[in-house]
């Protein structure tokens, strides 16, 4: 689905590279979390995927198409992107107008447009707000609209660039549960840039970037097993991981690294306390 081959990237007017010779393959239908501290290059990586940044050298391929300044427009119809700041990606004057924006760009006929707008607002549970103005929405609601705007364009890949980092916990939870649903039902590929490790634990695969190189690439459980080592790359292990580390020291272990507290508690019950 997405391939990066020997990709290097450097911002204009800057001496050092964000990436050098990065190789990465993401399969169709995967849910990948990209984590790392601020400045580790994770947002730049997201922008390389839909041609908002073009590789200085090396090749980025989406569905076998190499991203170039000519092909990027076509690639963008396959990759939808939700950005960090809800305020800065709301183009329309109302919710429906905002969802329509992408469809208008693709010259979708109006009848189809209306159907797709209704459908995608339904998917993010924002139908009731169809004619609202952005200033009357919360951050979480705006991000759901951004997600609907992307969905309406029926992409194969959705890239979320720290899309939940400016939201309050409730807004965050709503956005995440919608993404989870979409991933399961529509089999879209989800690439999620984040520094919230509880969020990363929801993914199928975690890629950790550190100073432009891949520090870790694997299953979330293997990632959390790193425990305190995560501090080295500016990340904070989740509460459950820290508790499990303490238990392990007392030789209390469960069959696999727990992803969240319910799993740990249930396993402890099953292995140690159930009669």
């Amino acid at each position, binding site marked *: 689905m997405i391939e990066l081959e020997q990709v290097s990237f450097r911002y204009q007017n800057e001496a050092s590279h964000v990436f050098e010779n990065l190789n990465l393959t993401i399969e169709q239908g995967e849910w990948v979390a990209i984590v790392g501290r601020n400045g580790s290059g994770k947002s730049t990586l997201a922008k390389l995927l839909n041609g908002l940044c073009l590789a200085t050298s090396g090749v980025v391929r989406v569905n076998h198409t190499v991203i170039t300044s000519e092909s990027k427009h076509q690639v963008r*119809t396959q990759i939808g*992107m939700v*950005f960090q700041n809800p305020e*800065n990606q709301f183009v329309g004057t109302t919710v429906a107008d905002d969802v*329509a*924006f992408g469809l*208008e760009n693709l010259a979708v006929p109006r009848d189809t447009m209306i159907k797709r*707008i209704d459908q995608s607002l339904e998917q993010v549970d924002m139908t009731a707000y169809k004619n609202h103005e952005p200033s009357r929405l919360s951050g979480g609601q705006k991000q759901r609209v951004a997600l609907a705007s992307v969905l309406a364009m029926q992409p194969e890949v959705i890239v979320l660039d720290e899309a939940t980092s400016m939201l309050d916990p409730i807004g965050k939870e709503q956005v995440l549960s919608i993404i989870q649903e979409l991933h399961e039902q529509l089999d879209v590929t989800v690439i999620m840039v984040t520094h919230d490790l509880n969020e990363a634990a929801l993914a199928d695969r975690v890629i950790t970037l550190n100073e432009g190189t891949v520090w870790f690439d694997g299953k979330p459980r293997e990632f959390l097993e790193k425990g305190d080592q995560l501090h080295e790359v500016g990340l904070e292990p989740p509460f459950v991981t820290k508790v499990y580390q303490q238990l392990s020291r007392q030789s209390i272990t469960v069959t696999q690294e727990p992803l969240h507290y319910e799993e740990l508690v249930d396993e402890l019950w099953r292995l140690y306390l159930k009669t």
Partner: protein
Amino acid sequence: MKQSFILGQYIPRDSFIHRLDPRTKIISLILFVITMFVIDRLFIYSLLYGFVLGCVLLSTIPITYLIKGLKPVWWLVVITFIFHVLFQRDGEALFDVFGFIIYDQGFIQGGEIASRLLLMIVMATLLTLTTPPLAITDAMRWFLAPLTRLGLPINELAIMMAISLRLIPTMTEEMDKISKAQAARGLDYTRGRLRDRLKALLPLLIPLFISAFKRAEALAMAMEARGYQGADHRTSYRQIAFRTMDYIIVCLMTTATVSIYLMTG
């Protein structure tokens, strides 16, 4: 947000006036202004006052809100009137105030011009109070559409307008935030000499410009990510539709304007 002046604000309601097509309202406003400039009989002014009052009542916007919100305009109207009364030299001399000879035409012309000013502003305000800014943009785009044939970038202009409208509340909020953040650091731009006050605007304007640029950049990126490649070859989701009532209103307004013109002409 300042609420002292209301021209340009929109108040969502579900009134007869709100429901009209924006083009109907703009055409009516233009016909109304034309009428005002062709007539010169006082009794027709009373008709116009009645018409404006009727429109305000139909819009369900509280009259007191309108009166308070247009405070600066009242002064302008009063000053215009006084100016004419004092300096008009036509007609019969009535009396003498501190060396100024007051003529009856002063009252009449002052009243006419002040009335024109007042009625025009009230009607324009009513247009914006009852029509979402975007609908006004849509109407303007419709009126200007023929000009695309001459190569004028009307579609681009419409998108620019729509995005500016979208960003006004955001930027107002931003301005409010920055000025408060600087006030918290002791900035006071409301006192002192003019030079100091102007200098004190820099800590507001610089961050505001920077944020506007950053926002524009981010928004451009978001637009590009969603496949924007220029304003042509796009389809349009928004449509404005004339309903029966709109045809009726436009016909009535045209008939009224023409008959008033013929009657007074």
